[in-house]
């Protein structure tokens, strides 16, 4: 792949996540009954960071969990190699909670669909909202995000990489061109 551009640096990324945290509180009229669930891999640190920001503003730390959607994917037979199956760690009762699903990039919408199925199998949340750092378009399902850090119109040959310190050692959003 060929590097094309840095779309967000560390400062812009942090600012975007803080804005999302404020929007979550505003839309839900506070932090009560809110929980953040990150989709493996990079959704997990995003959920953790949003939880920390909300705690900073509201004095209440919303619970956060980790969701693996591999067993819910609709393309398991299409994948040449086996996807890694990780443990789901949602240690709170989802029933009646307002869950904010967190992920790095919203693309086709299939991951979000799988995540909805996985979450609903755990109970009946009062609401499920969706937060992403980047919405790059190209939806294959009627799904949209409630909170978006940055909308990035892309071509199908481009790849958006959200890099997070917890996983990648750096904080940035980069645009790459597939070879």
């Amino acid at each position, binding site marked *: 792949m060929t590097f094309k551009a840095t779309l967000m640096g560390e400062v812009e990324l942090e600012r975007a996540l803080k804005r999302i945290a404020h929007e979550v509180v505003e839309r839900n009229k506070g932090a009560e009954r809110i929980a953040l669930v990150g989709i493996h891999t990079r959704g997990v640190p995003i959920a953790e960071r949003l939880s920390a920001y909300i705690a900073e503003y509201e004095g209440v730390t919303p619970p956060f969990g980790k969701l693996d959607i591999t067993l819910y994917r609709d393309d398991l037979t299409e*994948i040449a190699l*086996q996807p*890694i199956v990780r443990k789901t760690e949602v240690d709170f009762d989802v029933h009646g909670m307002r869950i904010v699903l967190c992920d790095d990039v919203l*693309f*086709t919408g299939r991951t979000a669909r799988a995540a909805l199925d996985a979450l609903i199998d755990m109970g009946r949340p009062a609401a499920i909202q969706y937060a992403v750092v980047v919405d790059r378009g190209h939806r294959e399902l009627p799904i949209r995000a409630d909170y978006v850090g940055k909308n990035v119109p892309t071509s199908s040959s481009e790849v958006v990489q959200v890099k997070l310190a917890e996983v990648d050692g750096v904080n940035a959003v980069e645009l790459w061109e597939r070879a």
Partner: protein
Amino acid sequence: MTGATTDPAALPRHRHLLDFAAWSAADVVALLGRADVMAQVLTRTIKKVPALQGFTVATLFFEDSTRTRLSFERAARAQSADVIGFAAGSSSLKKGESLRDTLRTVDQLQVDLYVVRHPAGGAPYQLARWTDAAIVNAGDGRRAHPTQALLDAYTMLKRFGASGGGKGAEGTGRRGAEGADPERPFAGKRLTIVGDIDHSRVARSNIELFTKLGGEVALCGPATLVPAEFGEVPGVHVVARLEEAVEGAHAVMGLRLQQERMSAGLLPSLSEYVARYQLTEKVMRLACEGAILMHPGPLIRDVEIDSALADGPRSVIEEQVANGVPVRMAVLYTLLVGKG
């Protein structure tokens, strides 16, 4: 985000599970890590995921079975696979149809994976040559019963922990001591298997797997039922006296006396067997502190194991049955998902 996370090093692609010859220690450790995730699915309110939706699993049992067959069916259905069953006693085999023709017939039902149990050693290997579907050996003669060995290994890791750790991100419960070899989780551990070793496919598969994962195995039983050549396998010792075999063991496994497979009188008498080889609380006190008692079932009470011991706190016999489901879920998933 779309795009699957894949790690070919941690996630091997195997077509069949016939025995462990083609499976590396890393493959097995990765599979056991995956079983951890599957176990978690079984604790949820809805104990089912759609991972194998659209796949058809057929159970071909040419021999009686209760727990293995039910366990595989539960494992397949917990992942939304369709399951069709076949029992030799009520099939056209009784009318003279050959094994190959029976398979050809069932193959027309779009089967993706066969779970095969057969009294003849090697039958699943032969079936694997005749079909494009995946084959899981659920016990063939006295040769192999790999999923039993996997669930036994999983049970041991759960109970006494591991000296090693799972590889890659998959599974979370198997990270062990710092610096330990993740591919040798049983390093420094000893499994003692007692009883009818010669007729036991469970013993053979456990020997193969436990030593592959770095452990040592002690075998004990009447000389007529413990062929001396087992002692030539690296990491395996044949020990004549029960007390000596159990001393210092981390896990002790009793085996069923398979009298239906004994063509000649291989035992002087049942009472003599009980006197010399029955596992009792007194004998188990010689094992390591916290050592566990295992049995693949079906258990003949007060023959292989004293009832009080079988029902006591050391016994993990029921855990073995419970652990069979997530382990078999992991096996089915590993063989069916992804393109080879």
